[in-house]
């Protein structure tokens, strides 16, 4: 099948690649861009382990074609830390023990990253609903909720300080 040229901004870097139309974004990221943080946990669009940020929205990259990303701005978990300093959501998951095996974590972090921009001061219930597109086998979610609320507090403090 004829390949298409797509150019996108990936974690702040311009990339241009020829892709087969059927290539799923998650495979493009993992196999072509070697960004292996985003994971694959299902083939029915449920688990959210592949969640990345596309043009300011959380999207499951297993259900999006790389060819659709022409002109898009994409952020993956590898783009979260700033010059080696962890983003508040990364720090929150670390401090509150919001991960065990780490397989869902990149998707959880990318979802939390966007969720807290859409809702900077969420209740516990809003966190649970807001994170409902992401499954976890290990944590029972309890500490993930604490992690997201921790990150919300840190981000609010940063905003006040700035």
């Amino acid at each position, binding site marked *: 099948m004829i390949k298409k040229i797509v150019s996108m901004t990936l974690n702040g870097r311009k990339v241009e690649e020829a892709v087969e139309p059927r290539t799923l974004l998650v495979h493009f990221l993992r196999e072509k861009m070697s960004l292996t943080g985003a994971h694959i946990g299902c083939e029915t669009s449920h688990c959210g382990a592949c969640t990345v940020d596309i043009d300011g929205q959380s999207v499951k990259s297993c*259900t999006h074609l790389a060819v659709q990303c022409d002109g898009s701005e994409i952020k993956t978990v590898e783009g979260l830390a700033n010059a080696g300093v962890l983003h508040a959501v990364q720090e929150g998951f670390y401090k509150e023990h919001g991960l065990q095996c780490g397989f869902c974590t990149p998707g959880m972090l990318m979802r939390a990253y966007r969720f807290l921009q859409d809702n900077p001061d969420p209740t516990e219930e809003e966190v649970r609903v807001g994170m409902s597109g992401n499954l976890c086998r290990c944590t029972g979610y309890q500490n993930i909720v604490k992690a997201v609320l921790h990150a919300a507090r840190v981000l609010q403090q940063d905003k006040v300080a700035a």
Partner: protein
Amino acid sequence: MIPPSFAYHAPRSIGEALSLLTELGDDAKLLAGGHSLLPMMKLRFAQPGVLIDINRIPELRGIREEGGKIRIGAMTTESELIASPLLQEHLPLLAEAARMIADPQVRNRGTIGGDIAHGDPGNDHPAIAMALDASFVLQGPAGERQVPAVDFFHGTYMTALAENEILTAILVTPFASGTGYAYQKLKRKTGDWATAGAAVVMRMAGGVVTQVSIGLTNVAPTALRARDAEKALIGQPVNDASLAAVVQAVRAVCDPAEDLRGDVEYKTAMAGEMAKRAILAAAARCR
């Protein structure tokens, strides 16, 4: 997980998309949010040779008032329905019910038009559109036509949409002030399709129901409008007797498929229960 190969087009206008559809025929499928089509392709249930991506067509987006109706572009995402101040004010049922569809990531991609055009009895918008008396704007090579939601769904995955047509918009009359509404959806977990669901739009005056429409989700090969149940309620107060009549009429019209969500008896009973709860919730909102 691995979809078959296909050619990809991304037209920038409805006209261009229609030309592609006409030219490429039944080997082509329109790609909207992609959250039903790509999952089917990844499991090889569908193997179209060409995808026509309609995500880059601005005419298919946006929610606005037009000629006394609210016009919702077919490519409006579920997230946009939830966030729309216009819908919150004039069609709160849509903004509220969209929160019960899938999960945040899916709602960022899935569109109201795609949810309807898919024709899956498990989807929520078909019954909601029936309860809202919505009509769908279909554009083909010969021009535009409008089909009422109640006439659109012909069977499981089968609709009035012709192969050379695009569903471009959903038209709905805004609620008169004091209209009650509710969508009750029984599901196994957040993000799942309904075991049974009921959408209700209702008006009351002097303690009795003056207008009511009831749509049912996932209890037949298509979404259903429960006409007999509506008749049982018109002119009546909402009480045990009228609700019992509604439940009986709802059950009579159900024809659910047995699957992991339950057998025929359970789903039929739950359809009655959801209709009852939706009517009670809608009545509480009537002014």
